[in-house]
């Protein structure tokens, strides 16, 4: 018999870490169920529900036809009636058919009913490109969702945050959306695992509060802001910059709504320079919101104009070289950081 097992060094993928939180909450609360496409037999296109059908059965892990409009409506109604549904949408690209249920009912019912109806509905959604899946399977659309009041949006960048933020989502009485970039979810068929996305994950439950950004690396010359996959690109950029004697701070937004505006301004006040990286479209995007924080609170802290490294306002190309040309990456962030330093 081996000695006592410790959690030290238990490295999990984001898919597994998020699933652990869902299963822990489901064991405690019989009102939680999951509904979506390919979640029972397949275990989710991105592995979000592997093993759940065996444990919880077909009444709590509900496979649906391709009918997002219908099952988001079902989940919204179920949440009003006291259940705590989880909706799985593999690709955020197809969320448009659910906008009425999300924007007009799920996001507003808590408010419009004067709190008589809660909306404990959580959506888990995959986003992002970089694996040649073309214009309708590669979008982020996070700013689109963040624009409407009443929706909380968590965008974890590693498996530790994936689990903690999922617990927080499932305990909230409002609409919450837990979104993971497909390239960091930990899926073999989407390419090599990003080592920085696979963190040590404790077995016990823990929750991470919304609206609390995370400093992955401290620095003094320039602040690199990102979330999800661009945290990892920013970390790679920070390494390259360090080799040239430039000290970059890497700030992970962690949740887009609420946004940790204090952390953004504090970091930029310290470094005096700002680069924001985002795989979502540039126009009216998260990068603009981050720049607005500095513009509103005190643009005098900036020693140089801020730079945005976001997705150009074009549909995502299918061709690999064309997509790579558009995607934010470490080299583009390095170039942007150097621009703020006049190099």
């Amino acid at each position, binding site marked *: 018999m081996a000695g006592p097992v410790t959690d030290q060094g238990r490295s999990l993928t984001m898919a*597994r870490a998020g699933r652990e939180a869902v299963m822990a909450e489901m064991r405690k609360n019989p009102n939680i169920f999951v509904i979506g496409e390919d979640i029972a037999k397949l275990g989710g296109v991105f592995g979000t529900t592997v*093993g759940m059908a065996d444990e919880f059965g077909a009444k709590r892990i509900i496979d649906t036809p391709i009918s997002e409009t219908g099952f988001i409506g079902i989940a919204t109604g179920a949440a009003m009636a006291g259940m705590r549904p989880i909706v799985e949408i593999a690709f955020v690209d197809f969320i448009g058919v659910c906008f009425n249920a999300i924007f007009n009912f799920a996001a507003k019912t808590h408010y419009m009913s004067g709190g008589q109806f809660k909306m404990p509905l959580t959506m888990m959604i995959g986003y992002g490109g970089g694996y040649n899946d073309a214009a309708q399977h590669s979008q982020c659309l996070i700013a689109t969702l963040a624009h409407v009041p009443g929706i909380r949006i968590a965008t974890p960048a590693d498996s530790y945050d994936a689990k903690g933020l999922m617990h927080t989502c499932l305990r909230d009485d409002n609409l919450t959306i837990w979104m993971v970039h497909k390239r960091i979810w930990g899926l073999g068929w989407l390419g090599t695992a990003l080592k920085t996305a696979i963190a040590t994950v404790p077995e016990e439950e823990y929750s991470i509060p919304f609206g609390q950004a995370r400093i992955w690396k401290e620095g003094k010359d320039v602040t690199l802001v990102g979330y999800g996959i661009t945290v990892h690109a920013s970390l790679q950029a920070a390494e390259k910059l360090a080799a040239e004697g430039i000290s970059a701070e890497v700030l992970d937004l962690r949740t887009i709504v609420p946004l940790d505006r204090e952390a953004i301004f504090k970091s930029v006040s310290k470094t005096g320079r700002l680069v924001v990286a985002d795989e979502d479209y540039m126009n009216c995007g998260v990068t603009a919101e981050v720049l607005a924080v500095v513009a509103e609170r005190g643009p005098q802290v900036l020693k140089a104009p801020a730079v945005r490294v976001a997705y150009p306002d074009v549909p995502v190309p299918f061709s690999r070289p064309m997509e790579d040309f558009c995607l934010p990456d470490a080299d583009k962030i390095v170039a942007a950081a150097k621009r703020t330093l006049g190099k």
Partner: protein
Amino acid sequence: MTDIVVPADLWDTDDEGVLFLWVYTDGAIVEQGRLIAELTVEKAQLELNAPASGRLRILVQPETIIKKGQVLGKIEPV
């Protein structure tokens, strides 16, 4: 010493899979029944649990193509 073998019934087809991730590092103490590795077959994520308790010895590195019945590592008694 117990071999960590890819079970023949882990997936339905004769497809090859890929060892994606070891949950613990070489030399870690693991407990029987706990998740120790993640595999990918086609687009499905599969999990491998420790066949025994003891010290994990890794023989196959991540991102390697694997087959059913293949030995991926060993568990040494502690």
